[in-house]
């Protein structure tokens, strides 16, 4: 059972590598482009292209799902194994992070923060497997940023829609357009930050790879066959990918999660919300007394 779940965890990633090898032609030279389109489903607003980034993010989704099952199946209260220690460590760490930066009221955000971190880090780290990192597709990170924006707006509306609308005219009514732009800038900057960081690493990786292959064919061009063009590309790009893929990917996942927590918890008008709650309670009690 354990082995089966471990295999199921790895299988989606292997499948996405297999799909890449089978369906995507190898590109020659400098090719900085978006995700490969497998096919397009006809829908209004431009149709739905099923792309490499979506397939990769679904693979990560499945992989994380099976990882959860792998970590949590057969848990005990005594004599715990390594898998349970890891699962408890993840949960406790995430809960501690949420508690320290959002407060006790937002403890329900634990799974959401864990989901953001897991999905973001795993999709960024997919580039270590030679896959197209899904986070370097603007659509993917925009979706996440829009979900965060929905959450922010929801928590701003907790103290009533009118209070939320009044918040736009806060210092002076003239500032309303600026406030609206500032409101929209939040998801845009979140999406662009994540996308820009990952794709800049991706582009630099491609440039380094191309440059190394050019230098290799210049220096070792006298070697027989295609060996000359690949000699410098063995191992050296991995050193750069330690920063651009491993460090930057994990860092961006952390930053995205931290920003989500900060934005959501600061969007919640706690004072007004509790004042209204107390007021409502008092009114209800007065009605009951009557």
């Amino acid at each position, binding site marked *: 059972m354990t082995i089966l779940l471990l295999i199921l965890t790895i299988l989606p990633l292997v499948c996405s590598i297999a799909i890449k090898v089978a369906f995507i032609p190898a590109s020659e030279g400098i090719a900085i482009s978006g995700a490969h389109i497998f096919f397009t489903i006809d829908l209004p607003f431009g*149709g739905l*292209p099923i792309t490499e980034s979506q397939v990769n993010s679904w693979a990560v989704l499945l992989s994380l799902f099976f990882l*959860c099952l792998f970590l*949590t199946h057969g848990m005990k*209260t005594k004599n715990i194994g390594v898998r349970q220690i890891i699962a*408890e460590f*993840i*949960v406790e760490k995430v809960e501690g992070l949420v508690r320290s930066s959002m407060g006790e009221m937002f403890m329900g955000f634990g799974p959401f923060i864990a989901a953001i971190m897991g999905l973001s880090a795993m999709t960024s780290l997919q580039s270590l497997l030679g896959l197209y990192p899904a986070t370097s597709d603007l659509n993917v990170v925009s*979706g996440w940023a829009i979900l965060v924006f929905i959450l922010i707006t929801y928590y701003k509306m907790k103290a009533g829609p009118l209070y939320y609308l009044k918040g736009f005219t806060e210092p002076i009514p003239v500032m309303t357009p600026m406030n609206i732009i500032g409101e929209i800038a939040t998801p845009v900057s979140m999406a662009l930050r994540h996308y820009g960081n990952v794709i800049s690493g991706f582009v630099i990786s491609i440039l380094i790879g191309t440059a190394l292959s050019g230098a290799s064919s210049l220096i070792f061009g006298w070697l027989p066959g295609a060996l000359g063009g690949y000699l410098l590309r063995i191992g050296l790009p991995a050193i750069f990918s330690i920063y651009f893929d491993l460090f930057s990917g994990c860092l961006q996942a952390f930053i995205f999660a931290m920003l989500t927590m900060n934005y959501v918890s600061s969007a919640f008008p706690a004072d007004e919300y509790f004042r209204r709650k107390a007021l409502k309670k008092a009114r209800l009690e007065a009605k009951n007394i009557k």
Partner: protein
Amino acid sequence: MNNLDVISLNIWQILISLANLAILFFLFKRFLFKPVKEILAKRESEIQAEYDKAEKATDEANEIKASWEEKMKTADDKADEIIKNAVEKADRRSEVMLYESREKAESIIRKAKAEAERDKRDAQETIKQEIVGVSAAISEKIIGREINMDDHKDLIDSFIDNMEEA
């Protein structure tokens, strides 16, 4: 063109990735956080139960210890009393014995004294007899004739008495 542009936006793709994140949120909530929290709560309750049990056991042990201490204390008192009684008894007996022994010693001494007195008297008597005998013999020899013992008895006796007095 079989690839997306580097920067492209498509409403359906955005919705799909939004749904992906939401689905992953529910998956994590259902399959990672819920079981782990359940197991943590279970463990906590178990530990609490263990603590309660341990506390109960400690209380019981303390109770037993207190009762034993009480018992020990009374036992100590009893032992003290017994020892005291024994010491008293021993003291008394030793006094009695001492007295008795002293008595015995005194009686022995008295008896010895009496015996010695008697012996002395006996000895005096014998010596007196012998002296009488001896002096009669000597006088006989000196005088050259037989002295009638009965005649001279009074004489000799008075002599000896004078000697004794002297």
